């Protein structure tokens, strides 16, 4: 464990994987939620706008 320069690539790889995966999970879940909520709002508006048949 004496050669520190050989150890840094392992440290950088581990941090890169965790940070990238966390950012992707955060953005992916946010985008999925926004899309679902927009779709729901659009449907609610369509329902309100449609003429009533009685």
């Amino acid at each position, binding site marked *: *464990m*004496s050669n*520190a320069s*050989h*150890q*840094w690539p*392992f*440290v950088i*790889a*581990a*941090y890169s*994987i*965790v*940070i990238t*995966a*966390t950012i992707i*999970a*955060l953005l992916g*879940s*946010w985008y*999925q*939620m926004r899309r*679902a*909520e927009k*779709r*729901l709002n659009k*449907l*609610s508006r369509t*329902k309100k706008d449609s003429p009533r048949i009685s």
Partner: protein
Amino acid sequence: MIRLANPHYFLSLSRKLTPWLAIAGILFSLSGILGGLFLTPPDYLQGETVRILYIHVPTAWLAMGGWSSIALASLVQFIWRHPLAGIAAKAMALPGALFTGLCLLTGSIWGRPTWGTWWEWDGRLTSVLVLFFLYLGYIALSRSVSNYSTTSRLPALYALLGAINLPIIHYSVLWWRTLHQGQSINLTHSSIDPSLLWPLPLTLIGFSCLFAVITLFRMRYLLAHAQYEARLRRMAAL
């Protein structure tokens, strides 16, 4: 608890809570990561690779904490039929699986320079791999039982049975002493020097907040999707 069962109350609370959790998560994680990478000394035995500790331990904590929370939500779904409990359990499965995968990956990367191998069928490593497969099984089961149904009890039963693996993971380092080191931190004592230990609580809090943010986003997605499906069904029935 009963108030939280109301999806409207939950949605308004989650909208207020999410930005604060996200800010806290980013600040705590960043300060812990920067502290762990640049401000702590290398370990006398492991050298620079000890820095992987500050991301490996939070991922392991969230892997086990995620399943514990899924099991708890499943229990609430079983006993009180809490409408949001099933959704919360389903929402936590994906980030739980992700952090379990990250725990295995960072452990493997740490193991190569420290143990000289990427993988060993050691008790701790194998039981965490089993947890990863349990997560994948839970995701597949909850999707296949019925699309985003909150009433199905089969995934809840699976989650409760899967919780048997949690004490096995915890005690694996005592039962099978192979490559993975024993427990070095508990609630009252730590065998790690304070000069190395201080960034760990920061990354633990930070990643836990980010896990909560992902879970809240996914809960809101599942609720919106369920409402959308229900409205479509009602419109089709008219």
